[in-house]
């Protein structure tokens, strides 16, 4: 298959992405991406807290 010569011309502005089923996380209790991101940040906070407690327990 031949490719057209690639150019670095700016790509055109695409249509605003509308939420479709494929773009949703589809996880139990986490129905929006914002909820998934908050869950990830919550896990991070939990890991840091556990590490601090672990170090403190055996200091």
């Amino acid at each position, binding site marked *: *298959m*031949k*490719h057209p*010569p*690639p150019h*670095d*011309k*700016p*790509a*055109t*502005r*695409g249509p605003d*992405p509308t939420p479709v089923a*494929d*773009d*949703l*996380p*589809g*996880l139990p209790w986490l129905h929006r*991406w914002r909820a*998934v*991101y908050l869950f*990830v*940040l919550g*896990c*991070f906070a939990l*890991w*840091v807290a556990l*590490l*601090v407690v*672990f*170090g403190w*327990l*055996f*200091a």
Partner: protein
Amino acid sequence: MSPLDYLVLFGTLVGIAAYGIWRTRGAHSLSTYFKGDQTTRWMVIGISVMATQASAITFMSTPGQGYESGLGFVQNYFGMPLALIIVAAVFLPLYRRLDVYTAYEFLGRRFDAKTRLLGAALFLLMRGLAAGITIYAPAIVLSTVFGWRLDATIVLSGLLVIVYTVTGGSRAVTLTQKYQLALIFGGIVLAFIVLLARLPAGLTLTDAFTVAGGFRKLEAVNFSFDVHQRYTFWSGLLGGLFLSLSYFGTDQSQVQRYLHGASLRESRLGLMFNAVCKIPMQFFILLLGALVFVFYQFEQPPVFFNEVAWKAQADHAAGPRLRALAADFAAVHAEKQQLIHAWLDAQHAGNPPAAAQARAAAIAAQAHSEAIRTETRSVLHAADPRTSTNDSDYIFITFVIDHLPHGVIGLLVAVIFAAALSSKASELNALGATTTIDFYRHVVRRDAGDAHYVTASKWFTALWGLVAVAFALFAHLVENLIQAVNILGSVFYGVVLGLFLVAFFLGRVGGTAVFWAAVAGQILVFGLYFTLNIGYLWYNLIGCAACVLFSLFLQAFIGSRGAAAPVTALS
């Protein structure tokens, strides 16, 4: 190693190579060669991203970090969850919408050809050198196990990796990584179980943690604002954020992994899998190193963990001095062992003052041990300046070879090679893809067919493999392998990230301004690296900030020429 170990080791190596060749047989289109068939589910994406980052270095060097410095290195990954959220929310949708092969193709569409080539060149330089370091890691294993020359081992194992990688397309890389990461996790768990079983009778896990904590090996989080300290919460959070944002958002070896996803959802969830799992994974590998430290408080360790290098000098003029230092080291170790037993006995008897006294004496004995180790390094270096005085990367493999049962040794060495092949395949594949798409197809030959570009990519992959081998021959000069990879990344990644952040968020900045801003930013980072003494993670932030601020400044001078920006995260 016994025949059983060799059988497991070579069976795995040959099996992986055969599997890669078998899965990549037949013709490829350019798209399937570089992006797979884009049907991959989120778990496999997540595993592929994790396996690309977790190379043989992770398995060998990180426990050495845990042994020597404790858990503090885990802070290096504190910026990663937030970085992956930003990549998933901002970078990924644009890459998928524009259907790019490489991240730098996006820079070309957003700015111009020279900015695209600059971003690609910085990636090739940084990743090409880092690839050399990751070839060096498994070579240490071979040279230690077989007593071969390290340089010969680097060349031979590097050639093996090149042959395997050149035959593999991106899809085969992803598929094999699934099994390789399973092996790695299995290896970590097995090493943990065997290590705990080998601790002295009567020593509970709590006792082991008490000893590790007493020697300050379990202090994972340091909230100090001192920028001269290498790992703190703040440098990990801020510097680590920029390092991870660069690595996952702009490094082709990672971008190529998640562009495999069957949909935006699959790619995003694959990244979120890493955002949740990476910190606990690194914690357990570092904890493994800290427990190896505890193990060696009750078992005599070698005075220098690179025993091949030590023995080489012990047979020559420095021999008497080295043997005297080894005898001193053994005597101090025996004394320290008694103090630790007294410390734990006092602890069990509920006598805190006696426990504190014994602990303080044990810490002093440990300092004495470290002083003897330092002097041993000096003697080795004086005897032969070419001898690497860094033995931290030999700690875990020495433990495996000296203290684990046959069969398990072969399995763990095979795991290290599996990890090496896995991450090397991703790196060389990305280097080949970037050279082909961003340079060869863009600059040299624009109108060839798929088969031509796939063939060209294989040649470029082989060439990068040879460059990596050449660089690996000098990797023994660096202090610690995994730190070296991160330092190298930090010096280059900040500016590359700056390019992408300007592309995503500053629509009024054009190609000329951002190009010269990136050049100036990179020169600034080089200058600061050689003159300032600050934690290397900060260079990610400095490089990125310099690129963004310089581009705004330059654009203000240039005016609106060339600033059309149709594709940004905010468009």
